């Protein structure tokens, strides 16, 4: 470099008190288990009163057993929808969510399996249809995240898994659902703040989430003539099983404190956003991403 930079004269120390929100914890497997988390995520806002915004509708929510997906299922049920939950193998989480939904007088179908498998994605749609006879709202929400310090640490196997679970499953599931979707139906994809901000510790994950943003926009254009709206939600740091199952234990206590609100979100804070996009409240909205991230990214 030809430019002579002024020499560094010394250093000034800058410190910040980060609020500790959660005990340090780690789960060794993905997807994580909500039952093992401490404290438990808040997935229901008792003050939220449903008014039949999704009455008589059928919603399929992937990753609906726990985390954001569970909160979405609960809010959808409050609004009168019957729910089909697609999950991997977290049977206890899934059964807890099912019981919760059934206690509200709604039906809940549990479908356990591997979204990496296209045949299973089709099966999930088929089982929903044979059980409920229709499908109105598709929430593609399941995701995995495997933090690595560098690109060189991301194996091809991990890269493929991340894209298979986070993105390709959306193609498979939506493709299988398309013949049954009608005008007025809605598709909602969960992307992430890391699609917008980038994440040096989750390069493959953030790339898959960026792909979901573009997928959402392209599909919105593709389906607008059918009257089907396609939108997404970009959560910031939210207290879900994915967090302790992916981040090192020492990162967990201060999760989300880099947001202007200096805290993590709770799953119940995400649910109304999905209700808005699923219902007629957003009849003039398509191809959009809503950001629920405590102000972490402001580029909408």
């Amino acid at each position, binding site marked *: 470099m030809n430019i002579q930079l002024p020499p560094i004269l010394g250093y000034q120390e800058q410190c910040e008190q980060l609020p500790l929100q959660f005990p340090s914890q780690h789960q060794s497997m993905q997807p994580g288990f909500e039952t093992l988390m401490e404290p438990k995520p808040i997935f229901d806002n008792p003050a939220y009163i449903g*008014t039949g915004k999704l009455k008589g509708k059928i919603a399929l929510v992937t990753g609906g057993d726990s985390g954001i997906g569970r909160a979405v299922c609960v809010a959808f049920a409050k609004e009168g929808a019957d729910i089909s939950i697609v999950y991997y193998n977290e049977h206890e989480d899934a059964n807890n969510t099912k019981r919760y939904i059934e206690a509200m007088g709604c039906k809940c179908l549990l479908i356990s399996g591997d979204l990496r498998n296209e045949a299973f994605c089709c099966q999930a749609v088929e089982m929903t249809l044979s059980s409920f006879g229709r499908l109105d709202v598709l929430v593609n929400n399941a995701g995995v995240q495997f933090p690595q310090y560098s690109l060189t640490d991301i194996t091809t196997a991990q890269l493929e898994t991340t894209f298979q679970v986070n993105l390709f499953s959306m193609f498979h599931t939506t493709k299988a659902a398309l013949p049954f979707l009608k005008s007025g139906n809605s598709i909602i994809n969960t992307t992430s703040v890391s699609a917008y901000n980038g994440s040096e510790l989750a390069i493959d994950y953030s790339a898959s989430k960026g792909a979901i943003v573009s997928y959402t926009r392209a599909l919105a254009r593709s389906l607008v003539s059918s009257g089907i709206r396609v939108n997404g939600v970009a959560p910031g740091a939210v207290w879900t099983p994915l967090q302790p199952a992916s981040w090192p234990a020492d990162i967990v206590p201060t999760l989300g404190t880099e947001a202007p609100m200096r805290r993590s979100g709770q799953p119940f804070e995400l649910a109304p*956003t999905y209700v808005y996009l699923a219902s007629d409240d957003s009849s*003039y*909205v398509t191809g*959009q991403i*809503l950001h*629920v991230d405590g*102000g972490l990214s*402001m580029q909408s």
Partner: protein
Amino acid sequence: MDFEFPILGYHEQCQRLPVRFPAQHQPLQPGLETEMYPKPVFDNPNYVGTGKLNNKVAIITGGDSGIGRAVSVLFAKEGADIVIVYYNEHEDAQITKSYVEAQGRRCLLLPGDLTEESFCQEIISQTIQCFGKLDILVNNAAVQFWQDGLENITALQLYLTFQVNVFPLFFVTKAALPYLRQGSCIINTTSVVAYEGFEYLIDYSSTKGAIMAFTRSMARSLVPKGIRVNGVAPGPIWTPLQVASLPEQNIPIFGTESLMKRAGQPVELAPAYLYLASDDSTYVTGQILHVNGGLVMSS
């Protein structure tokens, strides 16, 4: 230039655009909803409120008509008392007031000129005097003056557009700040043209970009106080502003450039404001929601 781009001929491409509105124009801004035909749809009779804004007090500038009217009516359904700030459209304002009162909520009408800082301060003092508090501030009033090219935008028009669309956000918000508390929120109306640009509304689209950045900066500024600041960016919506600014011949196909090939109705905007005003969006700040029929997908 070293390159040449020869044209070999032309290929004609035609589009059938659905016509939903008769040609019409109103000579004055702000426009009058009473004189529009068809009337904008601002109320969803099937919408059931659940007290999401119970006993909150909301100020809505430009709340007499258009998007502001739809927001006023929906907020009232959710239990809020409403302060409507408007210029001189008394008939529009009275109609909105009657809808708010039909929901069993109070409605204070404050006609005046937002370009005067003293009036902006008066809005807050009158609100506090009438209702004793303020929870939600919706900065929504705007003007837009159609011009073909920068050379036709006079300094006078430029200043007026910023004086109505931008500066009152500073004045009203500044006056409101001492009364806003943890859980209060501010919602600013920006526009799809802030993102797309628009060659016939260069000054207007600049003001809307300013509102976008104001929203982000205020979100950062007020987050320690627990006050959330967000915005809504409407696409083409059937409001008095359109018939008062667009050339008459643009009205019949108004909004057909959106992906949904239609203009939005004010009623389709209101739930976005409600979401941002209520505890449904407790983890949302500094964001813009795009309600534009898919016209722009930059969120």
